[in-house]
């Protein structure tokens, strides 16, 4: 194969998104250089357990999507839909846990983008990613609807692969955010 699975257009989009996040990651790491104490102090305010659950949720969700793609490659539409729904459920779990985290930081602690540099990065990175999870879920939901209508088959399932590729990117981003923002110090 010369091209990645799914529509090439989504890959151009994925590349653009990856570049933006890469810039944010590098900015985080280099800004931390001059604010080590601040970063270390406020990193400890973050909820490690929530981050663990969320990482597991996204990885599992990504795995379910992989299974959905293999199901449609075997022309098994019903399994494809079921796996995608399971992936969506995992995405929803992520959102719920994340909202719990935000509820604590935003409402209980009253933190905002302007609180300090660490929270600026924490909120920017995670909220931007949070919006991507929602976007990814919207895409997956559209794929589920199409799959349920029987639009995909073993011969033609570019749509499933396109949605899957985007969703894996959402997972991929989190795989870096998790250690960078929550663990590395």
């Amino acid at each position: 194969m010369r091209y990645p699975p799914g529509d090439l257009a989504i890959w151009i989009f994925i590349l653009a998104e990856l570049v933006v996040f890469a810039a944010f990651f590098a900015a985080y790491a280099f800004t931390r250089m001059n604010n080590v104490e601040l970063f270390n102090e406020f990193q400890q305010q973050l909820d490690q357990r929530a981050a663990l659950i969320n990482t597991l949720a996204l990885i599992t969700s990504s795995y379910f999507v992989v299974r959905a793609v293999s199901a449609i490659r075997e022309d098994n539409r019903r399994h494809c839909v079921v796996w995608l729904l399971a992936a969506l459920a995992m995405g929803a779990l992520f959102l719920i846990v994340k909202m719990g985290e935000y509820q604590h930081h935003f409402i209980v602690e009253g933190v905002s983008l302007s609180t300090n540099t660490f929270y600026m990065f924490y909120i920017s990175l995670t909220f931007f990613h949070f919006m991507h999870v929602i976007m990814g879920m919207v895409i997956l939901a559209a794929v589920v609807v199409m799959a349920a209508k029987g639009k995909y088959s073993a011969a033609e399932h570019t749509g499933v692969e396109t949605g899957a590729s985007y969703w894996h990117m959402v997972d991929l981003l989190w795989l870096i955010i998790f250690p960078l923002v929550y663990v590395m110090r």
Partner: protein
Amino acid sequence: MKYKSQSVAKLYFIAAIALFVAQILFGLIMGLQYVVGDFLFPTIPFNVARMVHTNTLIIWLLMAFMGAAYYLIPEEAETELFAPWLATLMFWIFLAAAGATVAGYLLFSYSDLAELTMNELLPTMGREFLEQPTITKIGIVVVVLAFLFNIGMTILKGRKTSINLIMLLGLVGLAVFFLFSFYNPVNVVRDKFYWWWVVHLWVEGVWELILGAMLAFVLIKVTGVDREVIEKWLYIVIAMVLITGLIGTGHHFYWIGTPDWWQWWGSIFSAMEPIPFFMMTVFAFNMVHKRRREHPNKVATLWALGTAVMAFLGAGVWGFLHTLSPVNYYTHGTQITAAHGHMAFYGAYVMISLAMISYAMPLLRGRNAANPAKSQVLEMWSFWLMTVSMVFITLFLTGAGILQSYLQRVSDNPMPFMVVQEQINLFYWLREIAGLVFLIGLVLYVASFFVGQNEPEAVVADR
């Protein structure tokens, strides 16, 4: 020309070129005032010359966009314009309003103009690029609404192509974001913040949809490449424009009292803004390379390729130069901004308008496909003169800006503004000379419409 009603575009294009000439003349006056401070003082003070320079630019670009819309939308929709008479009527209203406004700038002092037009009822005047009296702004809204209605109805009754939809979306966005020009709070920070919703979201947002649609239309016509291919690239390019450009607005929110975190958001997203311009360059050259036919209108192709290159240089590269907040800290509001503004406006919007005019005018004037060779050669000369002199204007202003930033802001003993201005005088003289060359190019451009009219049309030699 396939549809009779497309001919209304001709009026718009002629007015656009006339205003373009006025814009350049006032640009030269300003350029001279930079070095001969009392030139025309106090008859035409600098601020008046600048208002005329920037406002005629905006108006002639709007004229060109409307002309382009009236030309390409019926052709794409494969139907006559919904109401050609409305288009003609709106043209005269728009021209009269524009003429009256410019005359107002020149004949009255600005404060008298404000009083005369009852600015106190809804104060919107006196903000950069939005200097038009409130009544003119309302006039623009009325004209644009009538225009949108007209082209919207045309699209509704005809074929719905991607180019038409994107053009329409861009023009609707233009109208919607212009509404922010009526919001003028006393709070300066808020005033500036929403002012950018007009200025940035126009030139780095919806105008680029218009640009993209016009470029795609011209490319389809002159290259004969499959519409499907051109349209999908168009979508990708403008998607990237908005993805980077919407949050890219943040590069204006570094130092105007807006919160610090904009420095990160603005820097990161606006650093991506050259990407769509680069894609556009690759796209345009690719399509011309893959062309399925040789179009006799060579000069239209030249303008289209010129747009792709110069927009990338002016908006992409020169924008990137000072878009990162640590750099912008020193360059904000210096001649660097002026350098970027000149090349970006010329490269993106002036050149695409001229590309469209270059493609459409021969057809509007009753030719089969193109102007006679003699006329085209002259227009190519004007292309190179204007483009090369604009490159030099930009380079000289960049030189001036770098020195200015250093002397006034970076060095250990910052000098006062006016002292620095004298230090960089040489660059302003060079810029003015380059400006004169630009004017020569413009004169040739206008002349190209009259040269060789009786000669036979250019044709393509068989390959």
